[in-house]
């Protein structure tokens, strides 16, 4: 460790120091050999840090200061919907009745939890226009895999064998990866010049071997698929299932429903649209919603109501099985349900309206400075491009992203979707104020000016962070994935 390096918790360790307050056993002392045979016992202790409680508290508090979050500033990450995470919903989710509930508590003793899941399901079914729901998948991509396995089971049940899944060229990387994990081949369908899926190319790709068309709507360009119902018609004409990647549901709340657009199955990321915290990469949670004909294939168990009792239904002979132990990320469901109950139908529509209003406002404000490849009304996000800056001053989108950090903003999603060169995908969300949007727009304008007048300052950004630009090539070439204790042979 160098003097200027921030220490690892291991480097704060002093042999013999302790932070735990564990008791002595209150049961008769029996020699350990009588309890666990010698051959099964561990020989060398793990080299965990030996620190005091204050050292732990200080270490992780100081680490938190080296981390940017919604609570500190604007995170305009396209497709990630980084909106405010209400404190009330955090508090509610930590009630002991939820946080200390064992998953194998008999159903009659877990009625509150089952009812919560049932009611959340009802709300989401109404909001999306779908018929049935499972919360078992732990995240959006997990929901994609679940859905594709269900589609596989659905076709197997009908005696059909289909081998391909179609995804647009602007799709999230999870779509093709999920399709492969479910055993499907992937065919990419290009976009047309308005940013929609190209209908002619879609027609050419469709056939009796296509199991599903996976669509993101609004798509990753922030554009509503103008022919969504026509796409569904075409897919259905070939017997294929329509899958909605619901990462971008925020723009549709109370305005249009995937179920009415012709989708057979969809996921929604509760940590995006429904405001549960991203947690630095997780946990999220997923609601997977299906139309009636796919319901028999849902993973077990399914929460059901019988009169005024709630129960877990296990006897579902056509179910694909399970994709996770227990019932899903329940603690996250509590937060999502609290969010739904705080807003109600009217509040949700206001969310969509303002998310779209804010995105269009930023789009229009940035349009004189950055190329906007699809300059039409956007939904909750839009894609800009740093191509002009790159061509005139050699400043790349990555440089722009790093320079934004100096101005107190998290960078937008960069280099995605893959269909736009030097892409900057910006999603302001409904919870940011006009003042924040203006400050962000001004920072983007200043960076554009800097790119012309003083490109070096952008190319070497960030300048105000605890570390400067990090050597990612070195990290990949010489992987250092764990700290190693000195004076001890490796495991």
């Amino acid at each position, binding site marked *: *460790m*160098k003097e200027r*390096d921030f220490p*690892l918790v291991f480097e704060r360790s002093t042999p013999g120091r*302790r*932070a735990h*307050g564990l008791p002595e*056993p209150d049961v*008769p002392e*029996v020699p350990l050999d009588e*309890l666990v045979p010698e051959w099964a016992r561990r020989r060398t*202790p*793990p080299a*965990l840090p030996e620190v005091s409680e204050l050292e*732990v*508290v200080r270490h*992780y508090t100081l680490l*938190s200061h080296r*981390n940017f*979050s919604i*609570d*500190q500033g604007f995170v305009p990450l396209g497709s990630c919907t980084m909106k405010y995470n209400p404190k009330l919903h955090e508090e509610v989710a930590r009630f*002991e*009745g939820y*946080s200390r509930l*064992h*998953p194998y*508590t008999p159903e009659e*003793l877990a009625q509150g939890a089952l009812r919560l899941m049932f009611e959340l399901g009802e709300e989401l079914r*109404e909001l999306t226009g779908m018929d049935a729901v499972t919360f078992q998948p*732990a*995240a959006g991509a997990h929901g994609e*895999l679940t859905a*594709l396995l269900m589609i596989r089971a659905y076709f197997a049940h009908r005696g059909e064998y289909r081998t391909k899944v179609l995804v647009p060229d602007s799709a999230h*990387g999870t779509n093709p*990866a999920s399709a492969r994990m479910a*055993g499907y081949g992937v065919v990419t369908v290009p976009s047309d010049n308005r940013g929609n899926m190209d209908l002619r190319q879609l027609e050419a790709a469709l056939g009796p071997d296509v199991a599903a068309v996976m669509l993101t709507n609004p798509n990753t360009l922030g554009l509503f698929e103008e022919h969504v119902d026509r796409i569904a018609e075409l897919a259905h004409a070939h017997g294929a299932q329509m899958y909605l990647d619901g990462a971008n549901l925020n723009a549709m709340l*109370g305005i*249009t429903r995937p179920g009415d657009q012709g989708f057979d199955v969809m996921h929604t990321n509760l940590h995006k649209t429904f405001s549960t915290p991203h*947690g630095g*990469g997780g*946990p999220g949670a997923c609601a997977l919603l299906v139309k009636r004909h796919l319901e028999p294939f849902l993973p077990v168990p399914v929460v059901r109501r019988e009169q005024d009792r709630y129960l877990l239904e296990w006897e579902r002979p056509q179910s694909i*099985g399970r*994709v996770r132990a227990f*019932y899903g*990320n*329940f603690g996250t469901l509590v937060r999502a349900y609290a969010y*739904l109950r705080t*807003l109600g*139908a009217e509040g949700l529509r*206001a969310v969509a*309206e*303002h998310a*779209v209003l804010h995105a269009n406002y930023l789009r229009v404000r940035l349009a004189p400075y950055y190329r906007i490849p699809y300059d039409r009304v956007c939904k909750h996000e839009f894609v800009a491009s740093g191509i002009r800056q790159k061509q005139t001053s050699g400043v790349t989108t990555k440089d722009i992203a790093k320079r934004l950090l100096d101005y107190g903003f998290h960078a937008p999603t960069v280099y995605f979707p893959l269909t736009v060169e030097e892409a900057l995908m910006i999603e302001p969300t409904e919870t940011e*104020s006009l003042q924040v949007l203006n400050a962000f727009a001004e920072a983007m304008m200043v960076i554009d000016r800097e790119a012309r007048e003083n490109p070096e300052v952008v190319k070497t950004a960030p300048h105000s*962070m605890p*570390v400067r630009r*990090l050597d990612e090539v070195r*990290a990949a070439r010489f992987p250092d*994935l764990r700290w190693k204790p000195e004076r001890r042979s490796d495991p």
Partner: protein
Amino acid sequence: MRYVPTTPEERAHMLRTIGVRSVEDLFADIPPRVRLKAPLRMRPSLSDPDLVRYFRALAEENAHAGKVVCFAGAGAYDHFIPPAVWQLASRGEFLTAYTPYQPEVSQGALQAGYEYQTMVCELLGMEVANASLYDGASALAEAVAMARDLTRRDRMVVSTAVHPEYRQVVRTYTAGLEVEVVEIPHQGGFTPVEAVARVVDGRTAAVVVQQPNFFGGVEDIRALAEVAHAAGALFLLATADPLAFGLLEPPGGVGADIAAGEGQPLGSPLNFGGPYLGIIATRMSFVRRMPGRLVGATVDAEGRRGFVLTLQAREQHIRREKATSNVCTNEFLNALAAAIYLALLGPDGVRRVAELCVRKAHYLKGRIADLPGYTLAFPGPTFHEFVVRTPHPADQIVRVLAGKGFLAGVPLGRFDPELGDCLLVCVTESRTREEMDRFVEALRQVV
């Protein structure tokens, strides 16, 4: 409107800037055919105090571990969580942060991830761990897919002493992968080494065993690892409670090629089954086949140590359909909590928790075995869980005991009808002798 700061004046200003007359105009690209025609029928919105009341009432309907004495385990454990764990992990800077794709503003999360990876490696005795997957069951399924890719063999030999829900998830995942899963029935609650040896062959990608196993038994993992390796198969060790390795020989100590399991016991609350923490660790030589995010140490432009997400070429956002897995969102916050938990415990605490679990569980096991009408179902060494044959169907025992303030355990009939009179009982360091003595009395009265 709650959580929307924009005032009507600001709204009008934005509309003017955009050059449209109303918000409606911003939705003109949505075909009227697919527009909502009637308002949604949803439950009415609740004020803050009403919301608290509603959610508290629902929460209190549940027999949670603060209300009943919890002897249930089976993959979800009521270990004591030091308050510092979640007071730190819930700091807004961690809780409301995005995935650390911009490392310069995410050093806190990245360094914590690197520390987590190190601690998991230390606890499991493995060379490399990722920065978390969804849960133990799906981590095991990912490990199975990894074993198939590494060996190019398509047969998995799985002990039925592995958690039944983990095995179900493995079967679901493999449905798409053209992998054959062969289950070896447990004998008396343990994995029969000879039976495994008879089945393992040149087509076997991996032998999958759990330690401690689903019934709480301490498996002879060394012998099982040898059987796997003798046939050129990988040895894949699952676990539902890695704290056991505070006392038991860890996966790395017996040459496990992949360790996969559940990290909930490391500082995550029961939460009715989630969010939990999927752990996967392996040999360094297999790292490029490992799914999930990895944090690596590197240097910045001035030579200072810093951390980045690395080896991303394996991941879905780069490699798309050729990725090692589709995992995108992980369980980072739970991984952070695990790191803080393990830092608070240290080597001494981890060993002590494991010892307390074993000593207390054996005390209760002995006392229940002495009760008339109750017997131990499976003789053999156990860690913090054991299976009891009950004088009445086990789910009835659980129901009656619930009325006396105990969650008596997990009835095994739900997994295997032949085990309808079997109760899986778990004791963690959180249980006291007084609670156990009262529990024994309550069990005695049921007979």
